[in-house]
């Protein structure tokens, strides 16, 4: 295993340094960087597989000269699961990038892009393997910084720089809270090694435990993009090159989920008051709902996907929160079910979100715009991309027979099983959370019907879309692989559940796989309360659609059809008659106007001769960015005002005052260290 790990490490390192050795040979740089990344990801899959099957966690440690820092890595089941996920998505994006980055030839230094990409992948891989808090933080920062540089790839644009800065600030606020988490744990364990955290986790006093809980939730939550800490995400994720967006949205946010599970279930040993679980559940529910609601209002495809990541993180947290509640009330089996559901959705979201982001990248590649209002009719021009995107859209809308359905179904069942909890408030709260999950599922369906329908169907709305062409083969391979994974993960809970069960069994101590999988693994069952069989559903869907075909032939004979223009009340249908993305979402905007607080501005300038004919009309409609306006801006303003005042104090015109400050500072320091 060590050899395997070293070869992964060296592949990535090669991917980082080799492209820099061939300046201005873009093809070689591209092939080298992404080829090596692909190799590393393949090896990562193997290592992850080994980690999942090996009974004992693999461990390696190097001491260093820096005190408290120990370069130690540990591959337990949880880490292995996340390693598999990172490598799987990384493989697809690397293959995809081989074709995609040709778009950037001549605009961006290919060497830098390639080496940053490899650095990003490497840091994510190491983050989940790290076994020392200090080391973890260094890698976490490395991950943030490399992703920041990737976000600002097109730094000559103003909004890109803004997004990058926003991301950098937010992610550092998050890191500060993670540091706080680890410091509290360090104080208790008197060591930075995760092993020590694990040993002493249950001795953390309750009040400090609460500090750890909240700090970890805020710290990792910032990275994950939970509401209201999500504000940076819809700026940063879309501005990065699409294969990096896919990694950020599909995988990087999941490292935060990894961190949360590690801290709550591994370090704190699953011993916590029930309200922690409620907080996580509520945060998850709110994120899921608001995330998808804001996603619906976007007509920038990548921004839409970014908001939808907020939704899916919420769904994952709902599973984990429910697991925490059950764990606190002493139902280890249900807790295991919650964690399994959460992890399943983590994997699923990684697959379909990166699929959709790569699909959005293909559209960007073909049309040079992210605005959905200029797409249309692309299914005819890009049939493969369209098919793969459709599979992703079906999966993210949680429809059978794809993977999104399985994990949401499990979360539903988990929330329903709340009736066993002896607290009437929770008995009612959890079903309401399930109802909200259903609402967000319904809205996600609307959202992705819009995303696919407006982009790929009917007539092209812009000239770019009219002349779009299918993307190069590597890009289609990347997409296709992920699309197949969506279907495989959907049909094959029989393979996935036992693996996840072993991951959760590490913390919960109970294995539930045999009880979830019944009928030789063909069906999923939860405590005699519900059952579903994905293969059976898929077969039924196929066979019964076939019955439809059969009827059509039996009753209608041979197909007689003719192609004719769409009926448009006697006019020829043009693209201007089509529904737009904005129009599609308008009824929903109106029904949930309490959430959106939409503002509409209509300015018209009339002709001088007559006030019935308009010379010019300007229509503007936007929704209030609630959290930015009412939560962030006031805080930022306070800081700005404070710093203004501070500057006025410090920018004195006399040298004496400065000397006075220095002397006062010295006195204070001496007082403190006395």
């Amino acid at each position, binding site marked *: 295993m060590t050899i395997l790990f070293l070869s992964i490490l060296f592949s990535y390192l090669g991917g980082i340094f080799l492209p820099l050795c061939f300046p201005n040979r873009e093809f070689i740089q591209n092939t080298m960087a992404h080829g090596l990344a692909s190799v590393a990801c393949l090896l990562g899959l193997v290592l992850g597989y080994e980690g999942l099957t090996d009974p004992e966690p693999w461990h390696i440690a190097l001491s260093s000269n820096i005190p408290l820092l120990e370069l130690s890595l540990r591959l337990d089941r949880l880490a292995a699961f996340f390693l598999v996920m990172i490598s799987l998505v990384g493989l697809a994006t690397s293959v995809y990038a081989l074709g995609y980055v040709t778009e950037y030839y001549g605009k961006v230094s290919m060497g830098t892009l390639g080496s940053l990409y490899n650095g990003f992948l490497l840091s994510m891989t190491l983050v989940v393997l790290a076994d020392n808090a200090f080391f973890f933080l260094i890698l976490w920062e490395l991950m943030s910084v490399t992703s920041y540089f990737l976000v600002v790839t097109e730094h000559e644009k103003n909004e890109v720089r803004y997004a990058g800065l926003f991301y950098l600030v937010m992610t550092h606020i998050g890191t500060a809270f993670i540091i706080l988490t680890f410091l509290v744990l360090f104080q208790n364990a008197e060591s930075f090694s995760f092993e020590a955290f694990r040993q002493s986790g249950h001795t953390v006093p309750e009040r400090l435990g609460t500090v750890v809980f909240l700090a970890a939730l805020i710290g990792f939550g910032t990275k994950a993009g939970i509401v209201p800490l999500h504000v940076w995400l819809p700026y940063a994720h879309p501005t990065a090159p699409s294969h990096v967006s896919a990694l950020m949205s599909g995988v990087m946010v999941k490292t935060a989920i990894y961190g949360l599970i590690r801290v709550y279930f591994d370090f704190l040993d699953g011993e916590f008051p029930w309200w922690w679980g409620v907080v996580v559940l509520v945060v998850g529910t709110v994120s899921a709902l608001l995330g998808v609601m804001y996603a619906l209002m976007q007509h920038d495809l990548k921004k839409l996907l970014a908001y939808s990541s907020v939704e899916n993180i919420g769904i994952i947290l709902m599973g984990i929160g429910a697991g925490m509640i059950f764990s606190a009330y002493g139902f280890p089996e249900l807790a295991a079910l919650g964690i399994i559901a959460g992890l399943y959705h983590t994997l699923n979201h990684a697959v379909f979100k990166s699929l959709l982001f790569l699909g959005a990248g293909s559209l960007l590649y073909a049309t040079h715009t992210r605005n959905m209002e200029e797409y249309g*009719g692309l*299914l*005819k021009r890009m049939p493969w991309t*369209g098919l793969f995107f459709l599979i992703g859209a*079906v999966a993210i*809308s949680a*429809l*059978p027979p794809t993977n999104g359905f399985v994990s949401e*179904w499990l979360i*539903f*069942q988990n929330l329903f099983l709340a009736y066993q909890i002896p607290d009437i408030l929770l*008995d*009612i709260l959890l*079903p*309401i959370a*399930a*109802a909200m999950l*259903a*609402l967000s599922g*319904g809205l996600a*369906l*609307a959202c992705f*019907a819009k995303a696919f*329908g407006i982009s790929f*169907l*009917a007539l092209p709305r812009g000239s770019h879309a009219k002349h779009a062409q299918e993307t190069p083969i590597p890009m289609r391979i990347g997409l296709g692989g992920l699309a197949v994974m969506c279907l495989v993960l959907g049909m094959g809970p029989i393979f996935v559940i036992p693996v996840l069960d072993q991951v959760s069994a590490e913390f919960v101590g109970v294995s539930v796989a045999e009880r979830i999988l019944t009928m030789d693994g063909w069906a999923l069952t939860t405590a*005699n*309360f*519900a*059952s*579903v*069989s994905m293969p*059976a*559903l898929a077969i*039924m*869907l196929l066979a*019964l659609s076939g019955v*439809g*075909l059969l*009827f*059509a032939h039996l*009753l*209608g004979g041979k*197909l*007689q*059809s*003719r*192609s*004719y*223009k*769409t*009926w448009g009340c006697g006019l020829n*249908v043009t693209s201007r*008659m*089509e*529904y737009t993305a904005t*129009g*599609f979402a308008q*009824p929903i905007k109106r*029904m949930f106007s309490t959430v959106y607080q939409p503002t509409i501005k209509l300015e018209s300038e009339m002709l001088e001769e007559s006030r019935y004919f308009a010379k010019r009309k300007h229509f503007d409609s936007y929704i209030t960015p609630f959290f930015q306006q009412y939560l962030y801006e006031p805080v930022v303003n306070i800081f700005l005002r404070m710093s203004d005042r501070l500057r006025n104090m410090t920018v004195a015109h006399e040298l004496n005052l400065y000397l006075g400050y220095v002397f006062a500072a010295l006195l204070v320091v001496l007082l403190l260290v006395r």
Partner: protein
Amino acid sequence: MFGNICLIFLQMVVILGVSPFVVGLIRKVKAWLQCRKGPSVFQPYADLRKIFCKEAVIPSTTSWIFTITPYILFGSTLAAGLLVPAFFADMPLGFAGNIIALVYLLALGTFFLILAGLDAGSAFGGMGSSREALVASVTEPAMILSIFAIGLTAGSTNLNTIVHRTALFQGVTTDPAPHLLALGALFIVALAETGRVPVDNPATHLELTMIHEAMILDYSGRYLALVEWAASMKLLVFLSLLVNIFAPWGIAVEATAGAMTLGLVAYLVKVSALAVVIGILECTVAKLRLFRLSELLGAAFILALLAVIFFYMFRG
């Protein structure tokens, strides 16, 4: 094994065969109430047969989504129909999906229908799709919560188990209140999901009001026939859910020929009765404005929530 296959086949025949009848019956009831004679109850069969034979006109703007949607819609609705126990309480396919799977199967059909509506490129299709997306998403919470209430009182979300237990009076007799409330909620949801009157008017082709008809405006020939058939099957699925969850009396519990026949007759009577109720309702209630929909579905949500609350309250 052979018996099971026969059962599945029989169920399929029942769902396929009865669904046009239900639509015809509702139309007939409405006609009577409007002092018209109305077409025969079996008119929808003749209509289907006729449309199947017609030439299909396919809009030139469309892609393969448009032509594949009728088959997916048909398949997913029929699959949902096979999950609901109609005349026999132990359907062999019961393991394949519980009531949530059924909801999501129907949602799959809706998803593709929304896409097909957008595919033709006319404003009508887009309008229908956009409204259908709204209705489909806001009915979800009330639906899931009422399902949960049912699951609580019956102790399961598997349709076979629910129907079985209700039919044998296990668990339901102790607390009628939650059951009644859940029935109310699910009834409203069923009306919204199947596009019946307070939400959508299946008899209209007025662009201001139509939802389902607007989406399928560009369909013709066999595609239209499949879509229409699927729509009536969806109605039948919801009717079967309502009657068999809340009043499964007469349903066959044992696999004997006599019990089955009785179950079939009882099923037909119950479904027809509910169809008559819907017909009467459609004549007496005005269609709601689209944006008043939230009030109706808010009420359904509250009913379902109260059902859950009452369950826990009376459980003690």
